[in-house]
């Protein structure tokens, strides 16, 4: 089921602060989209608006081309998993899951036996077949999450909205439930929107990443595009650790303010003028000194991760530039004459230079 959000605007009640500023978003059928951004960016606000839980002052939300008015219009069509799971505490896992079917008008409600059968199916699907009789207070975080998901799926919705569903889980459970969720999405042919503040999680699981900031969508792209060409300085920084070097573009070359950083050539399409070069720590190269030349740069090892040894580079004007090298056994301080940052991306006034 496709979701179209067009020019959605929402203001905070009372003070009138804009929470969503003319947000438009098209999610095609069976896409898996992650909404990311810092806290207060409007991710959850947008998700709740799509679900119809909060009123919005302008704009529309459509499902399969049909404009949705309020929550009751979406009831049963949209599955929503809350950050705190919002399980009904006084009902067993099975009754929680059956809720969406139990409240149907008698004419449309399946028989008791059919409902129980459906609950059993869902418990199996969630890999918690024995927990039907347990109350939420006795379940672990991961189990509650699965029950919440099963409850959201019981009425057979085509759209699944997840608000920070992994927030309260420990890292190992998080990782396994994440890939399991993606599998479930593919198997059931759902259209899923996931809100998370963890960009790694988003890059891991989603087909498309929508980055939000200050109630606006800053970039909407595939993980690959997002990684290779972030639209703004903010996106670049949000997606991972980045180091910036100010400089000036002229005659097809970027000359950095810091003389220890080597100039590099830029495409002709970049206009002359001041710019900022941003680079990931693992893209920085340390140029070794020639014999006889002195080496003013010194990098000391500090930590390691994912096969990379982390170093901290100390040079005048910068406080500790991080830079990562593939681990190769050598584990001592490095010295160099200059930094090569030719793989950096250029930004001007916060926006990417193309």
């Amino acid at each position, binding site marked *: 089921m496709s979701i179209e959000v067009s020019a959605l605007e929402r203001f905070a009640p009372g003070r009138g602060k804009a929470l969503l500023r003319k947000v438009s978003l098209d999610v095609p059928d069976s896409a898996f989209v992650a909404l990311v951004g810092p806290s207060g960016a409007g991710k959850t606000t947008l998700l709740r608006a799509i679900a119809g839980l909060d009123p919005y002052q302008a704009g529309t939300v459509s499902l399969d081309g049909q404009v949705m008015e309020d929550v009751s219009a979406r009831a049963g069509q949209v599955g929503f998993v809350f950050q705190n799971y*919002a399980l009904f505490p006084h009902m067993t896992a099975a009754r929680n899951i059956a809720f969406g079917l139990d409240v149907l008008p008698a004419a449309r409600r399946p028989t008791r036996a059919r409902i129980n059968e459906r609950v059993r199916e869902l418990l199996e699907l969630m890999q918690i077949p024995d927990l039907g009789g347990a109350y939420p*207070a006795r379940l672990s975080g991961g189990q509650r999450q699965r029950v919440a998901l099963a409850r959201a799926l019981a009425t057979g919705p085509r759209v699944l909205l997840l608000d920070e569903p992994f927030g309260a889980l420990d890292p190992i459970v998080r990782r396994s439930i994440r890939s399991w969720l993606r599998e479930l999405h593919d198997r059931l042919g759902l259209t899923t929107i996931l809100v998370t503040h963890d960009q790694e999680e988003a890059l891991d699981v989603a087909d498309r990443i929508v980055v939000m900031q200050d109630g606006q969508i800053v970039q909407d792209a595939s993980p690959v595009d997002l990684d290779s060409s972030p639209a703004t300085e903010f996106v670049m920084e949000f997606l991972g650790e980045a180091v910036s070097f100010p400089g000036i573009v002229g005659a097809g070359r970027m000359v950095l303010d810091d003389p220890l950083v080597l100039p590099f050539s830029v495409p002709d399409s970049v206009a002359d003028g001041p710019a900022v070069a941003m680079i990931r720590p693992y893209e920085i190269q340390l140029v070794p000194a020639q014999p006889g030349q002195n080496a003013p740069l010194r990098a000391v090892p500090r930590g390691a991760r994912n096969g990379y040894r982390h170093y901290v580079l100390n040079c005048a004007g910068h406080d500790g530039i991080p830079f990562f090298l593939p681990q190769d056994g050598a584990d001592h301080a490095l010295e160099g004459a200059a930094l090569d940052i030719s793989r950096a991306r250029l930004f001007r006034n916060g926006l990417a230079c193309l």
Partner: protein
Amino acid sequence: MKQFFLALLRSNRALPGYRLSLITTLLWAGLLIVLPLSTLLVRPWQDGVSAMLTALRDGRMFAALWTSFSCAATAAACNLPFGLMLAWALVRGHLPGRHVANALIDLPLALPTAVSGITLATLYSPHGWLGEPLSRLGIFVSYNRLGIVVALMFVGLPFMVRAIEPVLRDLPHELEEAAQLLGARPWQVFTRVIVAPLLPALVTGFGLAFARGIGEYGSVIFIAGNQPFRSEIAPLLIVVRLQEFDYAGATAIALVLLVASLLVLLLVGMMRKRLALWSEPA
């Protein structure tokens, strides 16, 4: 029990002064609660078993007890919806002046009960502000059991509200949203998602209001009319017996009142525990 005494003897506890605080607590509870209650259990039999048996065969006493218990139960039951509504308005409704209302709710607890009794009697008397229009409708509140119920509702309401309010406050708003998204209609949201998890709190509130209602004296006697066999409450009858120097009669009523109240409160406690099974963690 054995473990309990062993715990008393053991001193290597994380809590500093564990033994001291435990002894203080037990002594305090014993002096304030157990001692007076056990006196009440022992005293009636001091004039002899036969005097006690005669006193227990008093029809007026049973009528008074029945009045007390039935009126207290009715008042507590009537307070259930009102208490729920009030607690709801305090927690969820962002009404102006709710802080004032919040303070007003506890006022019946602070007011001398005689004051509230006289106030209610004046209001509901056949010539009072509320009594007159009601009497024209054929509803007579004062000087009968309805008056007792009204007075007991007045004093019992704070217990109900204060029992429900914190639980309702802890109930995440998302539960209602989740229910709506799952297709529940408004009354289904109310009954299945709000009232159902509040049941233990409602039972607790009922128990507290009921217990208070049984013991209530001052606010009731002015509005009740106090006719024997009709609108005479048990606490009043105790005072009447005392004034007649019939100590056996007075203590007999007190004993029955005590035992019956204890049984009812035990029942309420058991029911609450039953209803709150879901809240116990593994």
